[in-house]
């Protein structure tokens, strides 16, 4: 009678406070350089130490340049202000004794990429991080959510989060996808359908025959973007695929692991559990999705018409007009009428090995189109980079005219040197196409790694081949 979310909630419920809120025990806390400095400062001011040191894992990702090469130190970051933040994380991790995969580490990477791949994210955990894409970890059957900086301080100090319970929603993806349709297309389609506020107030469980058949990497792409549908929490029940993935990454001894696996495989929604909202999607009809506007819900089939104010409900007119103007849509009627300037393959949505393999498959033996001034591939972590290089993917990309980079958030957001210039149009595998997200006045079109790779070769979007 309980959903997976209900069960995880109850299992971590420490107590209910007078206020009516609950204290949830937090198993794992990830930290990065942007949302932690003020939290550490708060901790110091109160003369407190982290409640359970080992629960915390840190890495710098948002500010790091992706052209570092070997033996690069935090001190060498050219942007003085970015440097302060990264150095501050080094300092805080040293002072408090928190484990950090620092800028020099071969295991450094985007926090949501390294957590699962280093075995720190385990099914059934509660996981928080001062970053909204923490929902990513839900792909392994965790209750994972993004928090603000005040809460980062709170979790450091008390190992608990003060929260109210969310409502339950289930989204079932049924069927087999068409060619060239990836989990990115499927989650973008969902966001287009329910809107960026469609999941607000909910924990979304993803299920259905499609989910059962896909890899953990693909599941992470879906849970990653739950927040783009408004849901703080996205999650998928652990199954054999999950357990196999975790076993491969795990540092646990075999006896402990065996016990855990038994528990994990039983961790799922009861058959007769009640969801406040249920959505079933037949995925066979979904085409590759590309965003045209300034919100992830402004998404269409790659070959559809771009909406105009006249073909929508009146209260949407203004949003469409503003987005068209910002995106420089002008007279273009389809996405394929737009000429692209840059291509970015990376981010915590799509920088894992499977993503890079898919993109490499498309670009192999071809060359980046003349109108593309820069096409970059940014592996999500040191380990992904190493794996890709072992498979020769770096060479495939480089021979096609792409630039192969060091791990980090990169062009997903304009905090590090990888940015769009004003009015540049970018094919991006990231998760947010908000105004200015990739750089001042930059224009972002979200899509799958497959479509981004094809756009690099073709110069604009089209049917990948």
């Amino acid at each position: 009678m309980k959903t997976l979310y209900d069960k995880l909630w109850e299992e971590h419920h420490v107590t209910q406070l007078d206020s009516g809120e609950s204290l949830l025990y937090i198993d794992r806390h990830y930290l990065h350089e942007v949302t932690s400095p003020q939290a550490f400062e708060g901790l110091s001011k109160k003369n407190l130490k982290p409640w359970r040191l080992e629960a915390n894992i840190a890495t710098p990702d948002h500010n790091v340049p992706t052209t570092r090469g070997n033996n690069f130190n935090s001190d060498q970051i050219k942007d003085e202000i970015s440097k302060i933040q990264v150095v501050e994380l080094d300092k805080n991790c040293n002072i408090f004794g928190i484990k950090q995969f620092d800028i020099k580490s071969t295991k450094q990477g985007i926090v949501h990429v390294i957590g699962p791949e280093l075995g720190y994210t385990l099914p059934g955990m509660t996981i928080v991080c001062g970053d909204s894409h923490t929902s990513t970890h839900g792909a392994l059957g965790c209750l994972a959510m993004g928090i603000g900086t005040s809460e980062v301080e709170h979790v450091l100090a008390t190992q608990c989060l003060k929260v109210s319970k969310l409502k339950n929603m289930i989204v079932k993806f049924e069927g087999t996808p068409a060619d060239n349709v990836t989990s990115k297309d499927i989650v973008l389609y969902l966001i287009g359908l329910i809107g960026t506020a469609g999941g607000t107030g909910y924990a979304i469980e993803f299920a259905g025959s499609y989910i059962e058949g896909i890899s953990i990497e693909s599941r992470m792409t879906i849970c990653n973007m739950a927040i783009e549908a408004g849901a703080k929490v996205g999650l998928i029940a652990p199954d054999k695929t999950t357990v196999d993935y975790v076993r491969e990454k795990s540092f646990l001894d075999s006896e402990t692991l065996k016990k855990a696996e038994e528990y994990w495989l039983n961790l799922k929604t009861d058959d007769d559990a009640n969801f406040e909202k249920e959505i079933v999607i037949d995925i066979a009809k979904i085409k590759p999705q590309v965003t045209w506007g300034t919100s992830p819900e402004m998404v269409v089939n790659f070959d559809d018409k771009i909406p105009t104010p006249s073909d929508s409900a009146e209260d949407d007119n203004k949003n469409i007009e503003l987005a068209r103007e910002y995106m420089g849509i002008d007279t273009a009627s389809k996405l394929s009428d737009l000429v692209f300037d840059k291509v970015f393959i990376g981010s915590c949505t799509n920088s894992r090995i499977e993503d890079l393999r898919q993109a490499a498959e498309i670009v192999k033996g071809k060359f980046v189109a003349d109108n593309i001034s820069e096409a970059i591939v940014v592996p999500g972590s040191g380990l992904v980079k190493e794996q890709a290089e072992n498979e020769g993917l770096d060479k495939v990309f480089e021979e096609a005219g792409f630039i192969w980079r060091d791990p980090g958030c990169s062009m997903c957001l304009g905090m590090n040197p990888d940015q769009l210039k004003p009015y540049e149009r970018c094919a991006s595998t990231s998760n947010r196409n908000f105004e200015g997200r990739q750089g001042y006045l930059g224009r972002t079109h979200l899509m799958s790694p497959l479509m981004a790779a094809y756009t690099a070769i073709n110069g604009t979007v089209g049917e990948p081949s």
Partner: protein
Amino acid sequence: MKSNSEGLIIDGIVAYIDRDNIDTDQIIPTEYLKSIKKFGFEDYLFDGWRYEDDGKLGVKKEERIINKEFILNNEPFNKSKILLSRDNFGCGSSREHAVWALRDFGIKAVIASSFGDIFYNNCFKNSVLPIKLEKNYIEMMFNETKDDLLEISIDIQKKEINLKQKIIKFEVDDFLIDRIIYGLDDVDVTLKEKNKIMNFEKERIKNKPWIFAND
């Protein structure tokens, strides 16, 4: 508790931005997240709309090219304590900097038909009151702004807005209202439950040892 009764009333002229889905990247662009401070974000609020040039952390408003069309750049809205918008305000990233920027600018209440979950939560940690209203009220308020300045008064404790003698009730959990009024520190409150947390943790270590294993 702030003993002056002023703390319980937020009043004045409403500034408004007629848009859905104003995300935290709009409220404060990523460039300014590089600050390691918790204050001083007022000049960067809605940076992309407020200025006609690309800003940098540390560059003050006086050195920028102001967009004269943008509402918060004009009297009397540059002193507004109340901001009106539409659907899904504060969606996107979890950055608390978005709330810090509103707070530092002097915004004490944001009225919208819905809010991003993490943003909503962050507001209460910084004494900014997010008020959810039905869409018809939002529409009415926007209509009121068309010909004249809209002046309202918000009674936090009674949870009501007084708009030209018309009373609009709003819903917020009481404990959240208390947080705005008393400005309680969450860490202090939670640490009163220290023993419960310790006992919970002990049990968990016994039952789920893998959570606590180290590499």
